[in-house]
């Protein structure tokens, strides 16, 4: 035995001698099987000794004829914590990187050597989501709020008898990337897992998707139809689309609000939910099933978003609103279109101009003479967006004489208590 070991060492130290033996496969796969093969002639009963140079452990097997050559039965090259398969004729305990040497006591036949390399593997990626109702992990189909398990099966990475790790596995949420560390589920499983959390919630007026890794590392992106979660590993790629928000119906889709007036907006559907958040731009307006919009200043079309949560799912609706000036009345000279000067002749035609009224129904203005009881309702004709003009009329047709005061009044039917105007005109 010592002679054989010496020859093996000599052969390792002095390359160039003819090697008639070889170990197959080479490198030997960790936790795999190998054979020692002799090409050429041998005598029946020739014994092969295989050494682990690091551990000095060895096994001996007999060569048997195999076609034109000789071969040993399979030898298992196993980590100490791995059991050999039943088909193994012998077992040699190895670690990754060990050097195995095979030798026979036949003149002119040099030893063979091989290194122990990684196990063969065909990696797979799986994504699981914790179903809190079932209290078990289920296959993730879309990305929603919850706890996830990323599992990568890669036997070639299980290399020790302690838990091994996959470090720096790249994941991405949209354009934002991060790296996860996965831990082997046991010493020899070759399956590596990392858990992470996903939070979907409104923030600064947008629905944001947050991913929080096991170390607290966080990446987030605003939701969009294209947003997805991806994992790539060794040429394999898994992509999970972020679930879209569910539709929400509001009491209004579009609202024109006169300055100084307020309008309550409510959630029409769903009728019951767990959480509500309203935003105008990045400003939060409230967290009730309703919000009061008030026209504090004139502004162009602005978006308000309503976010509604049912369970873990969020829905969103968008409303557009604008604030316009208060309704305004003026008496016009029907001939010139300019403001009617006072006092105005009872015989001359005038018109009533109504501005900043954006209704679909025709607006109505009431006119009359101060002191008198009869009033008339003028039908108004829209001449431009928000601008209405009456047909011409003469003050005398209202019963006005010299010294009288003609009045006109408009009340917004949608905002009667906050949007109205009146005007008076002296008559001569």
């Amino acid at each position, binding site marked *: 035995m010592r002679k054989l070991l010496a020859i093996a060492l000599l052969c390792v130290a002095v390359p160039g001698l003819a090697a008639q033996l070889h170990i197959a496969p080479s490198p030997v796969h960790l936790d795999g099987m190998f054979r020692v093969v002799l090409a050429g002639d041998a005598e029946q009963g020739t014994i092969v000794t295989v050494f682990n140079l690091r551990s000095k452990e060895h096994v001996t097997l007999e060569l048997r004829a195999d076609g034109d050559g000789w071969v040993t039965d399979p030898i298992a090259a196993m980590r100490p914590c791995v059991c050999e398969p039943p088909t193994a004729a012998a077992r040699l305990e190895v670690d990754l990187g060990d050097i195995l040497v095979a030798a026979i006591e036949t003149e002119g036949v040099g030893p063979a050597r091989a290194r122990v390399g990684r196990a063969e593997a065909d990696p797979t990626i799986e994504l699981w989501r914790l179903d809190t109702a079932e209290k078990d992990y289920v296959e993730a189909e879309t990305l929603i709020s919850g706890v996830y398990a990323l599992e990568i099966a890669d036997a070639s990475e299980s290399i020790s008898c302690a838990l091994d790790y996959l470090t720096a596995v790249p994941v991405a949420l949209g354009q934002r990337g991060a790296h996860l560390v996965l831990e082997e589920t046991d010493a020899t499983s070759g399956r590596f897992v990392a858990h992470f959390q996903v939070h979907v919630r409104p923030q600064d007026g947008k629905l944001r998707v947050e991913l929080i890794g096991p170390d607290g590392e966080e990446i987030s992106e605003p939701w969009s139809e294209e947003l997805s979660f991806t994992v790539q590993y060794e040429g394999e790629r898994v992509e999970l689309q972020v679930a879209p928000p569910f539709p929400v119906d509001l009491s209004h889709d579009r609202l024109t609000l006169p300055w100084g007036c307020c309008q309550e907006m409510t959630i029409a559907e769903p009728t019951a939910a767990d959480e509500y958040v309203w935003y105008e731009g990045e400003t939060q307006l409230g967290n009730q099933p309703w919000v009061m919009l008030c026209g504090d200043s004139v502004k162009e079309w602005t978006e308000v978003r309503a976010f509604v949560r049912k369970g873990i799912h969020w829905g969103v609706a968008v409303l557009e609103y604008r604030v316009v000036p208060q309704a305004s009345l003026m008496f016009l000279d029907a001939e010139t279109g300019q403001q009617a000067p006072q006092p105005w002749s009872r015989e001359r035609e005038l018109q009533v101009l109504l501005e900043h009224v954006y209704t679909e129904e025709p607006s109505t203005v*009431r006119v009359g003479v101060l*002191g008198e*009881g009869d009033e008339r309702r003028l039908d108004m004709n829209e001449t431009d967006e928000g601008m209405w003009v009456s047909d011409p009329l003469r003050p005398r047709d209202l019963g006005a*004489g*010299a*010294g009288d*005061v003609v009045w006109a009044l408009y*009340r917004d039917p949608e905002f*009667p208590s906050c949007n109205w105007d009146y005007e008076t005109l002296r*008559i001569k």
Partner: protein
Amino acid sequence: MRGLSVGLAVLLWTIGGVGVELAHPVFFASEPVELWAVAGTPEPQLLWGGEVQEAKWTSSFEDGRVRWSANLPPDVPRGPWQVCLADGPCRTFLRVEDEMAILVVAAPPGSTVTVVEERAVVGERGEVFFVLPPGAYVLRVLLPDLAEPIEQDASLRKGERTEVIPLQMTLRLSAEQVLPGYAFTLWARVLGLAAPLAEELALEVPPGWRARRDLGVVEPEAAWEVLVPEDFLGEGTLRTTVLPLGLERTVNVSVSTRLPLEVVTAHWNVNEDRLDLTEIGELTYDRVRWAASLRGEQMPHTGITVTRAHVDELARKWQEQ
């Protein structure tokens, strides 16, 4: 010129004798809405923009009529409101902010009243109103009989209704220089008020002077014939007053034994050949010719010998009239 300011005067806003009368055409926001109706009418209704508004009415019986009064909440809108009787007539009034002031100007129909840049023509009701921020204002009132407007100051306070009756009283004398023992005429004319003033005009004369009202002179003028005592020389002050309105004017008359040549000529009654100071003096052809006939002689009551230069001067002034 003096006018009259009466704070918070109540002026009936009457409409052609129908059974409802508003106290004012304009009410302040915190002011109760007041109206008079015939006895037996049910509680009125207040409407704004065609909608009935809640109001608490109270009523009292006055002079055979019912006086209704209602307070509106302070936050209800300003502008034109209607008060209606059940199945009866409606009346419209204006409701304005308490922070404003209401100016009511009473003047004859056809007058034009201007405040700041707002101009109003007075109709048959004889008054116009202005709603203005509190402050001091100058009213310009052009009465139908005058070529120049009357200017009247008005000081308006928040939440108050101020009534102004712009008046102008002018005095005319038939002669400003008179002789002792002679009579002259004073006319007083009051413009700006349609109501009759005849009984209210009074004349004060200096002691010993006698005044007789000429009842043949009608509105808007009053006239007196005033007799100067024979022993009076100097300045006499006459004062006319309209007592209820506190309106007064004074005018001075100079009494001396000699009068200017032009004054005597302008007042000479050629037909009766005497001096008549009770008519307005005027140089006429006949009077100038009479003066010319006195050339070289003393003109009566002047102490002046008439010369050609005097006559030329009189003729020149007569032609310039």
